[in-house]
């Protein structure tokens, strides 16, 4: 059969290209423009060159907020990925119990961010919240509005509660895609439970884990609403993450030029880390 090369199908990509241009490319170009100017209002912009970048790079408040952000994202990945895999492994595979588990797991994912923040804000209070009150009754000096450690623990716990189900659901779907024959072969070889996990389940989960790690990293790296509602970034600035610092700068202080320079650096960090994750995990695959 003679194949006729025909590349007309590329035209079908055009709508997506236009959409991306409007939703990403044009805003990005605008932000780059803003980042080299001092803007006082419409028509009142003065070119300042790289001044904002220099200032942002040397700003200690931003550096501290960046450090906290990395710590938070690392903690999120460190807790949620193993926990999600564990939950997925323990879930029943068939019948009504499986459906029930899936529904229960999906509930936190359906709750809007600011509601999650409000729930935990009340839940953690020492006077009317079950969690805070319970801990205080047990003799634990818990107060998330005053102690840095407690604030961090509450924000982390909230994020774990909200997003571990996503990791668990992804892993669950990955596990269901493993053919039964693999387990039968393992049984014939008298493989231990650990060996089955290490040599059958984990390698087969790799592709869903790539997505889980990427989604959780990006989401936790741009977290805003939940800590904003729960702690407002406090006590002090101990739970003020990058996006909150950025919002305060851009909208609170209307410092658009500096905020634009800051968001470009933020963007470069996210781009680099996401690319590193993606490359590391996809190339692990090829080496085998």
């Amino acid at each position, binding site marked *: 059969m003679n194949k006729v090369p025909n590349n007309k199908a590329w035209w079908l990509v055009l709508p997506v290209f236009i959409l991306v241009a409007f939703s990403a490319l044009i805003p990005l170009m605008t932000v780059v423009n803003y980042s080299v100017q001092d803007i006082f209002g*419409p028509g009142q912009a003065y*070119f300042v060159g790289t001044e904002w*970048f220099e200032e942002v790079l040397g700003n200690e408040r931003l550096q501290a907020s960046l450090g906290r952000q990395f710590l938070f994202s690392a903690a999120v990945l460190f807790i949620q990925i193993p926990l999600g895999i564990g939950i997925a492994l323990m879930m029943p595979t068939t019948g009504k119990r499986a459906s029930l588990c899936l529904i229960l797991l999906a509930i936190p994912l359906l709750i809007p961010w600011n509601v999650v923040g409000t729930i935990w804000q009340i839940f953690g209070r020492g006077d009317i919240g079950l969690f805070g009150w319970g801990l205080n009754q047990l003799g634990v000096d818990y107060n998330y509005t005053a102690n840095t450690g407690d604030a961090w623990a509450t924000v982390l716990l909230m994020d774990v509660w909200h997003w571990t189900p996503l990791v668990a659901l992804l892993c669950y779907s990955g596990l269901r895609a493993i053919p039964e024959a693999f387990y039968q072969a393992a049984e014939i070889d008298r493989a231990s439970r650990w060996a089955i996990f290490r040599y059958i389940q984990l390698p087969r989960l790799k592709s869903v884990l790539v997505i889980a790690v990427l989604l959780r990293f990006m989401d936790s790296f741009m977290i805003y609403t939940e800590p904003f509602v729960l702690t407002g970034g406090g006590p002090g600035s101990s739970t003020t993450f990058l996006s909150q610092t950025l919002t305060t700068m851009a909208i609170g202080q209307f410092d658009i030029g500096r905020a634009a320079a800051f968001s470009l650096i933020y963007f*470069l960090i996210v*781009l680099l880390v996401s690319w590193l994750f993606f*490359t590391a995990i996809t190339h692990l695959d090829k080496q085998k």
Partner: protein
Amino acid sequence: MIAWMNWTLPVAIFFAVIAAILVVMTVYEVVSPCTERKGFLPIATTRGDRLFIGLLTSAYINLMFLGLTELSLWIALAVSVVWVAILLRWG
């Protein structure tokens, strides 16, 4: 219509150069399609991968010059151009 974008000449030149690089790379790809190969980078890469790595690292090179040194950014630009060329050829 685009007044709110506050275009400045240096930024316009920057994006024009990026667009030109993409066009040139596309034409080059059509004229002589590249294959994935392994250079001094720890992973096998295509030409497009190397360009992406080059542009991203160049951004960091410029930020480092700005944040850590008092040197002119023109030097950073020169370093970046040499670095991207090395990366495309031997990376």
